[in-house]
């Protein structure tokens, strides 16, 4: 079973003549260890897809399950707990808390989940080390570069063994070198067993994914075929 499953998800806003269908019978399954990118223009429904997958919003119809648990069977508290323990979010504008240092930003979700402050700090520091940010642990967000801020945000999203990463234009504000390192980190997290969904309009970003889904007017209209091995591909290129 896939870690994240969306079945027949529709989402309507407004009603009557002003009704807007943001998502229309979307099916999506993301396995542990795989990175799926969702591409679409603005207004295609990709951010709505992410908020529904992350239980931040309920679908009008359809079913979401995360780690085998159906969201519709969970209470509000149950969903909040699932979000704290299993899901990490990464946004374009990093969403770091300005008054907290890097390590405090990363340890915060653990503390909110009841982990003792001291232990949370240790785990957060390890996570920052994994992301090459140990020397930035005590820096505040405004003392970090854009690329570093986003790396802290990713460290925060995956700290404590979260299994689902949801990212909305994670490198939108970064130059291409920093964007690449952000995608490398997300991919490395996937290789450690995380399931990840990245929504973006940027093909360079999407091309890091195992599978790319194309969304148009709230519907999945297409998806990419599996990639061949780098060796096979390079041999083909050389033979052209």
């Amino acid at each position, binding site marked *: 079973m896939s870690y994240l499953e969306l079945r027949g998800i529709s989402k309507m806003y407004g009603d009557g003549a002003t009704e807007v269908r943001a998502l229309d019978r979307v099916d999506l399954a993301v396995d542990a260890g795989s990175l799926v990118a969702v591409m679409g223009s603005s207004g295609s429904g990709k951010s709505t897809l992410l908020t529904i997958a992350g239980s931040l919003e309920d679908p009008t119809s359809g079913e979401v399950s995360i780690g085998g648990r159906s969201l519709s069977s969970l209470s509000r508290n149950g969903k909040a707990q699932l979000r704290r323990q299993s899901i990490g979010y990464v946004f374009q504008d990093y969403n770091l808390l300005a008054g907290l240092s890097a390590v405090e930003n990363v340890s915060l979700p653990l503390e909110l989940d009841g982990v003792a402050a001291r232990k949370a700090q240790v785990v957060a520091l390890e996570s920052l080390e994994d992301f090459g940010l140990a020397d930035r642990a005590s820096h505040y967000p405004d003392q970090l570069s854009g690329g570093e801020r986003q790396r802290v945000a990713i460290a925060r999203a995956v700290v404590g063994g979260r299994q689902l990463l949801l990212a909305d234009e994670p490198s939108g504000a970064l130059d291409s070198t920093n964007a*690449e390192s952000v995608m490398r980190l997300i991919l490395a997290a996937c290789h450690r067993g995380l399931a990840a969904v990245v929504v973006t309009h940027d093909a360079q970003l999407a091309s*890091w994914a195992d599978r790319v889904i194309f969304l148009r007017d709230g519907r999945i209209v297409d998806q990419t075929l599996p990639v061949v091995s780098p060796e096979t*591909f*390079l041999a083909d290129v050389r033979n052209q």
Partner: protein
Amino acid sequence: MSVRHALLALLSEGPKYGLQLRQEFESRTGEVWPLNVGQVYTTLQRLERDGLVESDDVSEEGPQKGFHITEEGAVELAQWLRTPPDFSSPPRDELVIKVLVALGLPGVDVHEVVQLHRRYLVELMQQWTRLKEDESRLDLNFALVVDAELFRLDSLIRWLDTADGRLKRAAGEAVLAPQPFPLPKARRRVGAPE
């Protein structure tokens, strides 16, 4: 691509044999553009004819024959490096032409045509990105070749995305726009009586 100038560049580092030139050309271009030996020797012969390179020993032919760059060759190389490639007029891009042709064809959904090409380009980009994944294999030259290809494909996808948006907007405007006056059934001759 100018094999001629690439060989001149390699020779500007010092005298080299034909086989060595081929090997170095391939490794410097990330092994993406294979070069056959025949092509190397034909190019060297032309360079020699034009006075841009000289062979070390006229009597010895084959793989052991060494070449070095001449002063004229060095000048030619320096000029070539600083001469921008000709981007002055748009290339006859097959993708652009296909989309333009699709626009005028009855029964063809242009959005579907656009999506088909978009998906293919994204798949290609995924393949090139895979080559970057293993950083230990990624030497500087190869990384630059891969980046160039990714940016080229990306620019095509951006064009498709923009085309898609423009078409959607144009279709919306066509629905909202006032209906044009009905065309006359037959064209009246200028000056003909009412």
